[in-house]
């Protein structure tokens, strides 16, 4: 029997507001434990929450970008459960009236567009972090993270493969990056993802029994965990077993999921309206005011790049995936008109250097001006494309501009026939048999001769000029 997977993702995005959701504490990542806390986020007696308007704006902005309807009337609810990292032993979240609902994200897999439904996106407060002592001295809680706004984005079970799950996360991260409302860094925990996975016989309408997978800490981890879980469930069913509803944890070292708790052990969260906060009413005007901050989104920008710069859809998708990279590209296009060449250089040389060093494009030592100045030197024949790669590496390493490096290293291309004449004559003289091979019709031999000239000039000879002169000389 053939099975098809049904996958839904719950993504928690930490919003990068300056202060927490219900108090004015700072939200800086990596601060000393319990240095960004106050009576409110520590859940001391008598404290009351006050909603951060910025977090609300971010949530609505994100909802608009995800094609969601925005609730005119929403409210917060208390989600009750006991855990030491949750100071009040309830989390202020949203139950039946989320800020955003009924949207979608378009993903691009195997050359096809597919819409993944977004059931809802709601605001809630983050919990703290338990720190366990190795020395057995007990456990501590760092409450710095407590109360940082989280936007929980819940997808419809529209995802049908691990690759689609990966594409959904990538698309979501890209959109949120454009909105500049979160760092979306899964390793640092500013983006967290749980996956609901079930399988069903192909063609069946009803869903199978799902497992909720937690504890993935990278997009690739989600891909692997979902793949593993589909295989596991398939095996269970093929062996005549039944999938049980449960929560499972992904173990990235063992590449397996493990059962954490069954449905029977699931919490009864006893949601009820948060009486300390008043319902949030948004008018059409409020929403339109927020919509003004909606930037051009990745999919629209991609289409525009194809139209305006004549690059391929694939290239446009790579360039527009990260807003900062797309900005970099567009800055370059304002300085230089060979758009295709800019795109190539960014995707090959620049991204390689950045990825090697795990740097964002904004930290590149080669700015758009320096890159395009270098490309102009290729265009006007001052350096060859091959030399340019060396020059670029140097530029990236030192932060110097192309001109300086070329002068310092003497890398200017030799295009003057007078300078090349003697070298070419020498190569022909000392490679008589190869010249004969070429004359006898062996095309490859010609390339060898070009190579010899390049070698003699330490790669500085202008290849076009060398080609022409060699052909003329051999006849």
């Amino acid at each position, binding site marked *: 029997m053939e099975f098809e997977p049904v996958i839904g993702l719950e993504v928690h995005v930490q919003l990068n507001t300056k202060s927490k959701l219900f108090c004015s504490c700072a939200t800086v990542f990596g601060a000393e434990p319990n240095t960004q806390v106050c*009576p409110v986020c*520590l*859940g*001391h*007696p*008598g*404290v*009351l*929450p*006050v*909603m951060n308007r910025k977090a609300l704006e971010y949530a609505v902005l994100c909802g608009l970008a995800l094609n969601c309807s925005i609730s005119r009337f929403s409210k917060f609810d*208390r989600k*009750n459960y*006991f855990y*030491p990292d949750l*100071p*009040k*032993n*309830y989390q202020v979240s949203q139950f039946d009236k989320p800020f955003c609902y009924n949207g979608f994200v378009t993903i691009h897999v195997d050359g096809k567009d597919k819409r993944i439904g977004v059931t809802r996106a709601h605001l809630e407060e983050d919990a703290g972090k338990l720190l366990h002592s190795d020395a057995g001295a007990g456990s501590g*809680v760092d409450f710095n993270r407590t109360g940082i706004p989280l936007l929980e984005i819940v997808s419809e079970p529209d995802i049908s493969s691990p690759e689609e799950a990966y594409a959904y996360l990538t698309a979501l991260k890209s959109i949120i990056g454009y909105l500049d409302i979160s760092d979306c860094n899964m390793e640092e925990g500013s983006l967290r993802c749980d996956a609901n996975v079930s399988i069903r016989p192909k063609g069946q309408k009803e869903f199978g029994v799902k497992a909720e997978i937690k504890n993935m800490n990278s997009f690739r981890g989600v891909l692997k965990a979902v793949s593993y879980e589909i295989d596991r469930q398939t095996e269970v069913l093929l062996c005549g077993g039944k999938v049980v509803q449960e929560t499972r944890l992904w173990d990235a070292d063992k590449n397996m999921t493990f059962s954490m708790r069954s449905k029977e052990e699931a919490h*009864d969260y*006893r*949601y*009820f309206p948060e*009486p*300390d*906060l*008043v319902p949030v009413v948004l008018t059409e005007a409020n929403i339109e005011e927020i919509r003004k901050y909606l930037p051009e989104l990745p999919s629209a920008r991609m289409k525009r790049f194809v139209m305006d710069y004549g690059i391929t859809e694939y290239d446009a998708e790579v360039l527009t995936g990260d807003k900062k990279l797309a900005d970099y590209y567009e800055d370059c296009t304002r300085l230089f008109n060979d758009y295709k060449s800019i795109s190539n250089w960014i995707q090959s040389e620049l991204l390689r250097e950045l990825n090697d060093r795990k740097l964002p494009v904004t930290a590149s030592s080669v700015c758009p001006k320096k890159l395009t100045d270098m490309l102009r030197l290729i265009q006007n024949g001052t350096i060859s494309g091959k030399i340019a790669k060396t020059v670029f590496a140097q530029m990236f390493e030192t932060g110097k501009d192309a001109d300086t490096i070329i002068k310092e290293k003497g890398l200017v291309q030799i295009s003057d026939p007078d300078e090349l004449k003697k070298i070419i004559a020498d190569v022909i003289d000392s490679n008589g048999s190869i010249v004969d091979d070429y004359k006898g019709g062996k095309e490859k031999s010609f390339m060898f001769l070009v190579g010899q000239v390049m070698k003699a000039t330490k790669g500085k000879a202008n290849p076009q000029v060398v080609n022409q002169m060699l052909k003329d000389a051999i006849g």
Partner: protein
Amino acid sequence: MDIFNQTACQLIKMLQSKEITSRQLVESVIDRIGAVDSKINAFVYVDNTAALEKADEIDARRANGEPLGALAGIPVALKDNLLYCRRPVTCASNILKGYYSSYNATVVEKLIGADAVIIGVANMDEFAMGSSCETSCYGPSRNPWNQDCITGGSSGGSAAAVAADETILALGSDTGGSIRQPSALCGVVGMKPTYGRVSRYGLVAFASSLDQIGPITKSVADNALLLQVISGYDHRDSTSINEDVPDYSASLGESIKGLKIGIPKEYFLYGMDSDIETATKKAIETFQQLGAQPVEISLPYTEYAIATYYIIATAEASANLARFDGVRYGNRAKDADNLIDMYCKTKSQGFGAEVKRRILLGTYVLSSGYYDAYYKKAQKVRTLIRDDFSKAFQKVDCIVAPTSPTSAFKIGEKIDDPLTMYLSDIFTISLNLAGLPGISIPCGFSKDSLPIGLQIIGKPFDESTILRAAYAFEQNTVFHTQKPNLV
């Protein structure tokens, strides 16, 4: 004439005319506490040193001709659920013994801003859960009129302290009658303001949608004065309302001629205590003589108020009290094997029986499968109760009713019978559900010479009208002039 048994309004005049000093006033009150509190147990603690220092500071500033706040030099007692920075606050619970506030409640900030002298912290029912002050971990406060009797609750310590002249003013909190009922039973004036009138920031929450802080005083004029100081919008409390605060004292003396006073027929049906019935009916006659016009009204959903209240209040309380878990502050059970065991033992050891009962009740009504039948239905009935009042207020300016169905009962009489105890709040609870202001004023005495309170209920944010009616009644009766004989 003793200093301690004057009203705040009288004392402010005496201080301003330099007839007395703040130090003399505070010393007088401290001496009074020393003389009678062993009988009353109104105070959890009294901070003599700080109070005297503050009094001296006020005296010095007065001598220098510096401007002073509205309550300059006047002793005020806090209820033990209001946070006063660097001072202990326990909500009369073992679970919080040893806990010190790390910030000031908004009302405390306002008292300090008004140059009041915070004299000490008054006893209460544990976490404000009770109608008799008997659930306190410090033992019950005793009624100044008869020390075998309860003070009422939960703000029993605050009301008893005012009645026994152990303080000039006091703050209480009222979730279902916790200011008005003890005020009635102790023969003093207590007001629950409109929900949202006074910031709840720094009030340890019992039931967030019902809690409200209010003044307990010896006279209506004092009540207006203290309400003035603590009222107003606070950005730290999202449920506080940004409405202008009128000058409550200014309109006190105005006539109540033509004032339409609603008499809810449902409040006189419950096989009523005859003393209470007589006193209330007499009070209505007094109002009539003053030119007010009684109008019979109906509040048909009254009979559901207690059930509704005990679902909503306990549901909210079950979440509000979850934070007292021994993890970050308060008392933690020492002999726990693991996390769950620690939670269980901490809460078992820290909370008293009534608090546990309400947490369990609240947890139950919110549980999956029961939410719709209990919590959701209670919210709907709450709306109906609110509508009852809205309709009534189309016909009348305020509503008059008894505050409590009985006068003070004996300590121990009802503590083992929670359902009977819960009936103590039958006339007060609806106001919390509807968010309305209500004031209790002395209106008579029972056959056993225990005080009886009259409740005047107002429209939302119309504390002025009920203060005016209360003042007119007080100025034309003598009940408030009588004092318990304590020495």
